[in-house]
């Protein structure tokens, strides 16, 4: 569509301007996706170009290298040792020996585990030997004949795969070093020895020394578990197949296919409804907090308001009490027996329609409990927003307000033209994070309504009940801790939540003024 310059834009009437902006917004959406795909494509392309360059480099190194360099293609570190880097050479060789011994020589080593896993072969079990109960006629008792434990088999198998990847990375690394050494020798420059290496590790390479421990930690405690959990989505790991009593097996994409079941109480239908409420909840929870927090901050900041510190302290008190304590307590207030709940009931303020459906408490009515959740969330979230808004509001240059007053702006105009844009600009990214956080706001939902009231339309799905106020994340929790403990379903749900959050974040991030017009308020 045609983009207007500012003079043309100012000529438009209010409605025209609105429509112009509206159309402009939507006409840009294909552009974002195009950008996204272009970026993705570039990343993928660069990745393969990198691999190609690497391969060329390896071949060239082999062609041009002397016997030691050629040898280091099979025996790690030979090239390093030839060029005098004895310590590096020994370390590389040691790594290779450990790898070969662990993977191929040990009877229960890497190869053993990796074979047992039967990677992704649909129908195959993880592990070979099924443990079983055996009768012992001598003692007249039953005992357990130990078999494989799928959970462990998969873990060790995965670790072994990591080791294999590490092997290739190290292989490439020492070949690259050979190439560098060759070049250095050709140029007649000094090749680093063991002493130089050690010194540089606490000097110019100090960042590597520092980062290694944390990198190892992240690999072992974050990356490995995440990959493990993702793999679980392709198995049938649940309480009936817990890996010990019954091996679990690979099911291919069956778990993902279940999400496309849109029959009356199919998983797809259930999740569709749940995603709807999750988005609705995140929207209301984020924006009600945002605007109310801002208004409270503005009101308290206003000149002529007395006891400012007192008001702030009162609001901040809710932060001082641990959230789960206050949430449980406030949730009870609205119970049938709670102070507020019973007052409403006695005062006859509970809607007629609820009484007809025999829903005595507010928490038993789907609509009422949804409203309650948003309202109670306000009470928890407004103080945080008020605190950050207070700081930002004080930062808005006062001359903006003064000049606008001279131009005859009233306070509403000042708010919509100065305060709000400024706030949105500064808090855009944090608004996005709080939106994403609210998508996964387990605490508030689980402690207040527990996902209830039960959605009778679905009843029991996948071994647990579906509630009207269940977010994806609380449903995930229920599925895991329910009677069937469907870990595989939890894993699929987790992936689903991730995709949802990633997509939303990408879209919203592209719209935010903070990322586009960085100079606006600089």
């Amino acid at each position: 569509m045609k983009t207007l310059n500012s003079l043309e834009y100012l000529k438009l009437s209010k409605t025209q301007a609105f429509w112009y902006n509206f159309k402009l917004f939507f006409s840009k959406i294909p552009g974002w996706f195009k950008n996204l795909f272009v970026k993705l494509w570039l990343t993928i392309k660069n990745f393969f170009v990198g691999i190609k360059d690497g391969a060329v480099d390896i071949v060239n190194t082999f062609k041009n290298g002397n016997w030691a360099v050629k040898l280091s293609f099979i025996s790690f570190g030979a090239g390093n040792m030839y060029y005098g880097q004895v310590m590096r050479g020994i370390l590389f060789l040691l790594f290779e020996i450990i790898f070969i011994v662990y993977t191929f020589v040990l009877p229960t080593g890497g190869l053993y585990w990796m074979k047992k896993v039967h990677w992704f072969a649909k129908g195959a079990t993880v592990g070979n030997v099924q443990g079983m109960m055996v009768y012992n006629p001598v003692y007249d008792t039953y005992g357990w004949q130990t078999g494989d434990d799928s959970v462990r088999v998969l873990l060790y198998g995965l670790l072994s795969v990591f080791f294999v990847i590490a092997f290739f990375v190290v292989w490439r690394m020492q070949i690259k070093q050979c190439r560098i050494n060759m070049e250095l020798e050709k140029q007649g420059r000094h090749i680093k020895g063991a002493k130089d290496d050690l010194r540089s590790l606490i000097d110019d390479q100090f960042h590597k020394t520092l980062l290694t421990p944390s990198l190892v930690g992240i690999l072992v405690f974050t990356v490995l578990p995440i990959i493990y959990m993702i793999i679980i989505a392709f198995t049938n790991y649940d309480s009936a197949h817990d890996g010990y009593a019954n091996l679990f097996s690979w099911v291919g994409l069956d778990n993902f296919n279940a999400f496309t079941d849109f029959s009356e109480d199919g998983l797809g239908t259930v999740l569709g409804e749940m995603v709807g409420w999750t988005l609705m909840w995140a929207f209301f929870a984020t924006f009600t907090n945002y605007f109310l927090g801002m208004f409270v901050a503005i009101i308290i900041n206003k000149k002529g308001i007395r006891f400012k510190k007192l008001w702030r302290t009162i609001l901040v008190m809710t932060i001082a009490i641990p959230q789960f304590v206050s949430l449980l307590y406030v949730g009870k207030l609205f119970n049938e027996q709670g102070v507020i709940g019973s007052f409403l009931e006695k005062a006859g303020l509970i809607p007629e329609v609820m009484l007809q459906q025999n829903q005595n408490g507010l928490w038993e009515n789907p609509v009422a409990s949804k409203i309650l959740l948003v309202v109670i969330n306000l009470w928890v979230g407004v103080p945080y927003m008020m605190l950050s808004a207070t700081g930002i509001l004080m930062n808005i240059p006062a001359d903006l307000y003064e000049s606008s007053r001279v131009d005859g702006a009233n306070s509403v105009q000042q708010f919509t033209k100065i305060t709000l844009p400024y706030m949105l600009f500064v808090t855009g990214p944090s608004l996005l994070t709080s939106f994403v956080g609210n998508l996964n706001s387990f605490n508030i939902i689980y402690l207040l309504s527990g996902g209830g009231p039960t959605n009778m339309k679905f009843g029991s799905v996948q071994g647990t009940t579906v509630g009207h106020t269940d977010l994806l994340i609380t449903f995930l929790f229920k599925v895991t801790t329910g009677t069937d403990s469907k870990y595989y379903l939890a894993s699929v749900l987790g992936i689903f939540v991730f995709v949802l959050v990633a997509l939303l974040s990408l879209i919203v991030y592209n719209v935010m003024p903070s990322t586009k017009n960085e100079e606006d308020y600089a």
Partner: protein
Amino acid sequence: MKMTKILSLVLALLMLSVCFVGCGEKPQEETKAKRGPNEVLLWVSTTAGVKESFEAQVAEFIAANPEYSQYTVKIEAIGEGDAAGQVLLDVATAPDMYCFAQDQITRLVQAKALAPLGVQASAKVSEENDAGSVAAATVGNQLYAYPLTSDNGYYLYYDSSVITDEQAKTVEGIIAACRNAGKKFGYNATNGWYTAAYFFSQPVGGGAPLCTSTWTTDDDAKFVGVNDTFNSANGLIALKGMSQLTLQTDVWVDTADDFGGTAAIITGIWHANTATEEYGDNVKATKLPTFTVEGVEYQMGSFSGYKLMGCLPQPEGYEAKGAFCQALAQYLTSEDAQLERYYEFQWGPSNKVAQQDEDVKGNVLLAALLEQNNYAQPQGTIEGGWWDIVKLLGTASATPNADFDQALADYEASINAKIAK
């Protein structure tokens, strides 16, 4: 400059070492959990004094059987309600013996955390314990545990200053008495465990219960069938009977825990102290009342529940230890041991001989429970989703002008779906 460098290096290394110290503990724990062939770990109730009582009984057993003198038994207090959850965290390192509430048995059998009883032990246990407790310890056709108590059920508590003994015999009498005194009658109709009371009713003067609901499991504890007759003419009678109470909104209150404002409540032995506090010296307990539908009088039924003791299947090389565990469990659930526990903790025995003990028979609360147990259906293994489904019936009964036929049809469809899935 140098100082910062060293400091950050030290911190980075410290972080890494913390990570690996965290890992390093696990193997240690494992060796601790993997007990030797002569070490036995037993989990019992957390009630004060129970652990000591079991310790004394174990010592007696070992003293009486010198062939077992090499075994050391360590006892830890873990609640029976939570046992399955704890055991299933890692069956391989779970305790050798543990006590649990009977509703956990299917999960435990499914996870192969219970060793089936041998031929002789099975025969002895089924002969010595009441039928309900034996059924509760059975999955498929195999006994998996030793009955420990037979006291988990519900009956009627009432305030005899408000309700006369005669009135307490019928629901109608209780409603009338409560209405006169402006009091409430507590019955937790929307809790499946109590909802079943009306469906398990039987005609006064003998006759089969109105309905049954039993689930069948295969030997792997998978639910393969359900025999449930709630959706029938009899079920309709039960639902009508229930609504005669639950539509009296001035008297009926949907609770089994909150005594406030009540003069009668249907709940279990765990509220014995609360009942005494609330009703004072006027507290009385008896079997559940009767109700009348279309001129026929029915006695309300109930669920009866049990606590069990089970043994972990021992791996190769630990066969002798497995045999010791079974023998010890048999001893700890024998008549004498159960009676001892009755005297110390008022745990109702499942052993038939112990039930005939004069003192046991003289206990008012146990007497009420045992009397009610004549009309009770032992809570076998039940599919976990049933508890939510059956609530629908309680809710329907309390809804004016509800379509009971529809509610029962919905109920049946929901439980059949449990098997189909």
